[in-house]
Every structure is written in structure tokens, then in C-alpha cells.
């Protein structure tokens, strides 16, 4: 098998088009994961013990099952279940499967962000008589969110790289297009190389961006005074 530029020229536009599907799917999955993750975090804050155990069990179950199995289940097994089974289109299955799978990790990130806000912050907010709602919007979230943005970014990249799994339910992402082209033309080298190239071309700059964000967030508000007792006035 030899590298053939004419194949590259032929297959590149096809994969380029499919890239939009992959990107769209990534965004849809990640948005789902962020929203469902927030719901898990809120549910976990309910202090009723049996309920808390139940949620923990569900989360552990979802997290411990391979996403591939979950996709297969949602697409092939669920429609067969009497009464509750429905047939879903591939895109929806992909979004539900990967979105919910990753929501369990995102939920942990949210939790760590919230728990990272020192108890004294809440006590000061109480002493200043902020309402419960204001405590969240003005004190907790503004401090909890910036530090977790890089972590969310990391998960976005991890999830992006898991998107090819959705090939098993037939979403026409980059890998699917490459596979179809390969099977039809007996040319595998170029299509798969191009797919790998696309993933690299998007993941690597993103991870650089995240590293930069991480540094920026770490510097935010937590910079110690240069000299003891001599603060610097921010402008």
C-alpha cells in the first residue's frame, strides 16, 4: 500500500464535511454533559441519605460502564424493551449516550469547584445577610467556576476524542466517512491518516489554549502581594 495524493485530494473534502458533524456532535454532547452534570450535582446536594446513596449508585453505574456498551444498549437494546422502549435516531443516541456518560465526570468537577470555596466565604456572606440565592450567584459560583474552566476544557478534548465511538450507531462523523470510503475503494491509509490529522489539528491547539487558560485562572485574584504589607493597586 502506497501513499497516493490523488486519493487524498478525493477524500479530503469528504472528511472535511464530516468534520462539521463531528464538531456539532461534540458540542451537543458536551452541552448535554454540562447540563445533566449540573443536575447530578444539585441532586447530590440533597441531604436525605437514602436518596443520596441512590444517586451515588446511579452515577457509579454510569461511570463504570463503557460508553461503547451504553451506545449499543441505547441503540439496539432499548427499542426492544416493552412499554418504555423507543427507537432513536443515531445522533440522539450519540448525544444521550456520550452526554450522560460524561455528565458524571462533569458533575464531579462542579462539586470540586463548589467545595473549593472556603467555608469562611459562606459565613461572611451569611454575616452580611445575603439571601441563599445571592450566596450562590454572587459568592459561590463566581469563585467556583473560574478554577474549573480548564478542567472542563480537558474533558471537552477527551470527549472530542471519544466521538468516533458513535460510528457503532452510524453517525456520519469523520471516522464513519473514512471507513465507508475505505471499504468502497480499498484505500484505508489516506482516509484514516487524514482523520487522525484532523483530530490532532484540533486537539493540540485546544490543549495549548487550556494550558494558557489554566495559568491565567491561577493568577486571578490569588496573586500574593509583591512585598509584605505593600499592596499593588490593580488598574
Amino acid at each position, binding site marked *: 500500500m502506497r501513499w497516493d495524493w490523488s486519493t487524498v485530494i478525493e477524500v479530503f473534502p469528504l472528511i472535511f464535511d464530516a468534520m462539521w458533524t463531528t464538531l456539532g456532535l461534540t458540542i451537543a454532547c458536551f452541552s448535554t454533559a454540562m447540563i445533566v452534570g449540573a443536575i447530578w450535582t444539585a441532586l447530590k446536594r440533597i441531604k436525605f441519605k437514602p436518596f443520596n446513596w441512590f444517586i451515588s449508585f446511579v452515577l457509579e453505574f454510569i461511570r463504570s460502564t463503557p460508553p461503547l456498551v451504553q451506545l449499543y444498549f441505547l441503540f439496539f437494546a432499548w427499542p426492544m424493551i416493552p412499554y418504555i422502549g423507543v427507537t432513536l435516531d443515531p445522533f440522539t443516541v450519540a448525544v444521550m449516550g456520550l452526554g450522560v456518560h460524561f455528565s458524571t465526570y462533569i458533575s464531579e468537577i462542579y462539586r470540586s469547584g463548589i467545595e473549593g470555596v*472556603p467555608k469562611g466565604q459562606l459565613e461572611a456572606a451569611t*454575616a*452580611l*445577610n*445575603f*439571601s441563599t440565592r445571592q450566596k450562590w450567584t454572587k459568592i459561590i459560583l463566581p*469563585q467556583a467556576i473560574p478554577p474549573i474552566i480548564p478542567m472542563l476544557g480537558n474533558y471537552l478534548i477527551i470527549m472530542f476524542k471519544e466521538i468516533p465511538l458513535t460510528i457503532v450507531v452510524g453517525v456520519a462523523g469523520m471516522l464513519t466517512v473514512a471507513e465507508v470510503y475505505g471499504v468502497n475503494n480499498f484505500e484505508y491509509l489516506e482516509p484514516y491518516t487524514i482523520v487522525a490529522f484532523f483530530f490532532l489539528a484540533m486537539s493540540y491547539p485546544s490543549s495549548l489554549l487550556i494550558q494558557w487558560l489554566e495559568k491565567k485562572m491561577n493568577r486571578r485574584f*490569588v496573586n500574593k*502581594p509583591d512585598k509584605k504589607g505593600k499592596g499593588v*493597586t490593580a488598574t
Partner: protein
Amino acid sequence: MTQPLIQYEDVHKSFDDVEVLKGINLEVDPGEKISLIGPSGSGKTTIIRMLMTLEKPTSGLIKVDGTPLWHKEVNGKLVEADEKHLRKVRGDIGMVFQHFNLFPHMTILKNCTSAPINVQGVDKKVAEERAVEMLEKVGLGNKLDAYPAQLSGGQQQRVAIARSVVMRPKVMLFDEVTSALDPETVGEVLEVIRDIAKEGEMAMILVTHEMEFARDIADRIVFLESGKIAEEGKPLDILENPNSERLKTFLQRFRSNF
């Protein structure tokens, strides 16, 4: 006779079955300054945290201006207060913490205007004027746009005091507000508290190990010992003529301070 601003009536507090406050009875008049002293673990912090609603009494009543803090009256019976009731009563109380607890994501000015604007509904301009005036008074008029992390401990604590004072509470609580500071910045914070105390109208309860400061500032000193008020009285009486052996021993440790 004016009614006391704060009343503790037979207040008990236990943490996991360990009783740390064993029947506290204490009254604070409007504008009165009280120093709360006592050995470590005697319950000083717990007493004022209950008044700030950060800790719930196990039994007994705490009243602010005659209104029960942790209870509300429904059909002539006292029932457990909800957050709404707590919020109403808590508005009269302010607190300064040992570790400042400034909001790190807000500038110094915003730290001092956020609660007046959002909690009390003060007009933004008015709130800023008041905050600037107060920050100038504590000597930080030139740090309005700085963030807490850019200030020294002493400066941060002065901001925390200003942040509380602009809310115009009827009573301010201070929990060992200088014990986390470098020795060289303790003085500037005590000075600020002295200035505020001199203005008079606000009552204060100060938990402190600075005996000289306690004597200067207080109308009354309360000595707490294993969850009970063991002795209280005028500063000079308490410090120069202690009755109990425990207080004598306790004070001996601070002799060098005055």
C-alpha cells in the same frame, strides 16, 4: 429603662453530645462594649457565632431587640425560625472574622458595597460614597480598586471591618480579629476598632486575648470558663481584683501584656 439590645436566656449548646455552653445568661445594652475573655475552648467563639446565626443553640433563647432570633412566634407559641425570620433579625448584627473572609473575586470597594446594594437595597452611588468614606477612615482610601490578595493581613482586616460597619449593624461581633496577623500589623487594626468604638452608637462584643485592649475599650468584661460565665464586671474590677482562682490564673498568663 431601655430594653437590652441582646439577651441570652439560659442558652445551651452541644456539639455531638458534648455540652460546650452550659446555660449562658447575658445581656448587652445598646451601644455597650463587651470584652469576652476566657481560656481556649471555653466557648467564646460559639457564643458569638450563635448570635451571628452561624451556629444553632441546642436550647434557650437569644433575643435581639426583644425579638427571638432562632424562634418565631406563631399563635402565641415559639417555633423554630425559618431563613426568612433569621434574615430579618440578622440585619442588626455584623461580624468580623479571625481570617477576614474578604471576597477574593471582588475589589476592596466592591467588598464594601455589594451587601449594602444587594441586601439593603441602598442606591449604588450612595453605597459607594459610604464605602469610600469608611475605607478612608480605616486608611485604605487608596486601595479601592485593589483585590484582597494584594493587601497585607492588617489591611485586609481593616477592609473587613469597614465592610461590616457600612451595613450599620446595631451590634458588631469580633472574634480574635488580630490573632491571625503579623505582630507589626496588630496595632493598626486595634486602632481602627478603637476609633469605631469611640463613636459609640454600635454595641460590640469582642473576643480577644489582648488584655490591655479589652480593658481600654470595654464597658464590661465577661470571663468565660468551661461553657459558663464565671465572672463579669467593670474592666478594672475584673482585671485588678479578680475573685475566682481560675480568673487569677488566667490573667497571670497575660501579666506581661500590661
